[in-house]
């Protein structure tokens, strides 16, 4: 078990490293053009561009930039923070044709620390700060949706598998097929149209995000539509998967044994059948939740929730590389973390994992 955990941890670190490398290549190496030009004001001179390049660290070789990126990411950017931000304050002034070294600029900078994610090209504030503000919104969205899809999806799957080839099964699988075929953004628009235009809920069920601390009821009513819409797709997948797995499991020999020794059917289904057929679902659930940290892009866009996915899209459109990279790195961390959690849950659910 100890060796297994160490192997898993090493693999996790490797995955995070690979994803950061890919992120770096995709977002820093692939795009043509020089991002420094945008910072050099309306009439960039070569000297100014060179100066900006130096300040953004873009004058160094690519491996050096990557090493710097990694060091900042894993060790934090606490020490270099003031050094990075102060020169840029003066550059901002260059855009207004007033070249000033406003030394006091750096004092107002917040958001340095661990993990160091650099500074947004667009807002010229720390990406970390922006991510900290947006994360609770995205987590609220994922949390509610995950509860709904897990409960709804697995229940539908179990009912469908146990009442195979009945009208209930047909209805459930029809719903699941619709769920996996329907685009989230369309469902979102339709839901908004029905509930806020056609039905008189427009005041209570709105778009946007309300802080839980300020108004728990508003938090709930503003999230109930996004939760449902986001959960529908996943509920459909989970229903199909639960049904298939449970049907396979219920055909196993040990189920026959359990029945033969006289266990009540309820116990056979839930203790022996469902437990074994849930293990692949746990794997999927962990990965799905982690990927949604940055991947609820569409739901966030439709329902105007200023979360992480929404930030990623805005940053992509304006080629704000550090912001985009920040979101991707956070998702990579989330995936790595959830994979570890899944492995632990797995060992609990499936005794074979513990003993091998």
């Amino acid at each position, binding site marked *: 078990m100890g060796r297994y955990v160490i192997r898993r941890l090493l693999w996790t670190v490797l995955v995070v490293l690979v994803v950061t490398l890919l992120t770096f290549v995709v977002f820093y190496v692939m795009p043509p053009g020089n991002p420094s030009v945008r910072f050099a004001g309306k009439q960039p001179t070569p000297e100014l561009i060179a100066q900006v390049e130096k300040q953004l660290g873009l004058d160094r070789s690519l491996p050096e930039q990557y090493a710097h990126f990694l060091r900042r990411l894993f060790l934090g950017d606490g020490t270099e923070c003031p050094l990075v931000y102060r020169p840029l304050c003066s550059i901002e002034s260059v855009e207004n044709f007033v070249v000033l070294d406003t030394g006091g600029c750096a004092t107002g900078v917040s958001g340095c620390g661990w993990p160091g994610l650099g500074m947004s090209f667009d807002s010229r504030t720390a990406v970390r700060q922006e991510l900290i503000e947006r994360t609770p919104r995205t987590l609220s969205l994922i949390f509610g949706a995950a509860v709904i899809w897990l409960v709804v999806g697995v229940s539908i799957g179990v009912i469908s598998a146990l009442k195979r080839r009945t009208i209930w099964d047909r209805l459930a699988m029809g719903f699941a097929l619709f769920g996996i075929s329907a685009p*989230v953004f369309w469902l979102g628009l339709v839901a908004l149209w029905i509930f806020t235009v056609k039905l008189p809920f427009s005041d209570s069920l709105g778009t946007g995000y309300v802080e839980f601390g300020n108004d728990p009821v508003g938090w709930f009513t503003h999230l109930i539509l996004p939760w449902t819409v986001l959960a529908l797709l996943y509920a459909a997948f989970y229903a199909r998967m639960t049904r298939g797995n449970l049907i396979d499991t219920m055909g196993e020999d040990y189920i026959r044994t359990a029945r033969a020794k006289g266990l009540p059917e309820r116990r056979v289904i839930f203790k022996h059948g469902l437990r074994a057929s849930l293990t692949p679902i746990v794997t999927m659930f962990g990965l799905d939740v982690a990927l949604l940290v940055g991947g609820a892009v569409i739901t966030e*866009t439709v329902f105007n929730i200023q979360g992480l996915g929404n930030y990623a899209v805005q940053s992509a459109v304006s080629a704000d590389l550090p912001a985009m990279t920040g979101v991707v790195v956070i998702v990579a961390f989330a*995936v790595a973390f959830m994979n570890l959690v899944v492995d632990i849950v797995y060992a609990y659910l499936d005794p074979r994992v513990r003993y091998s």
Partner: protein
Amino acid sequence: MATVAPEIHEAGPPAEPETDVVGLSPRQLFWARFKQDKAAVAGLVIIIVLIVLALAAPLIAKLVGHGPNDLFQREMTDSFGVPKGPNADFWFGADQAGRDVFVRAIYGARTSLIVGLVATGIAVFFGTIVGILAGYFGGKIDTAISRTIDVVLSMPILLFAIGIVAACGTTGCLNGLIEPGLTLVIFVIALFSWPYIARIVRGNTLSIREKEFIEASRSLGAGNTRIMFREVLPNLVAPIVVYSTLLIPTNILFEAALSFLGLGVPQRTPSWGGMLSDATQYFRFAWWLMFFPGIFLILTTLSFNLLGDGLRDALDPRSNR
């Protein structure tokens, strides 16, 4: 299987019950089973209709008299710029620029089908080769490929896709190899969908390579390449067909999502995702903007999913679902 028997019996000449039992080829068996599945047949029919509509799009535009990018602002938007709904001339109404939603929806089928089919085709091609290599050779090759697949599948695919499209969307990438527009979208979708096929092909190859006929072929002196592509590959056709059919709707939705976010095909090219993106601002008072493209999109993905499920049931009689 039991449900198929009467169908086959009826197909035979009823006047001569004494005739020898004629064996059915696998293809006939497959077709007999597939025909039973009404939903799958319906899916196939809808897909064929959609393909015909997509091919005939310019013809339909000519018959209607509105091109996909013709502006009818005077006729179809009021003085506030609000589009008008369906009428005899504009069956699906018009959008905020006064363009015919019906004609654009038909043209949208072109975009969706081209992206869905071509991207899936590329993904299946590479996924199959990579999957066979991993499953057939095993060992280090398998480890390397399987780990790569694991990493790709645990990446935030949509974010990377958005990033690549944004990065390459203006002037292209990799020295002009990837051009902005449709090519870029297809490239990005294929890049992130081959692992699904590779994983399935690898799994199937693992079990096929242990079969006796592979050993027989090897003892006759066949080389690795020959065994992989002449012996193993034909046995992979069924799973590949099923999973490619199921990958098509996923990829169609992928394109629609990118276009919805404004990072898919260029704005002028009609696409269902792009039309729904336009609808976000107007759907409160112009329901047709979101209704029709959405119906087309869901009908398309639903049909491919129905067809894929039907193919799986017909090609794999062992599964008793």
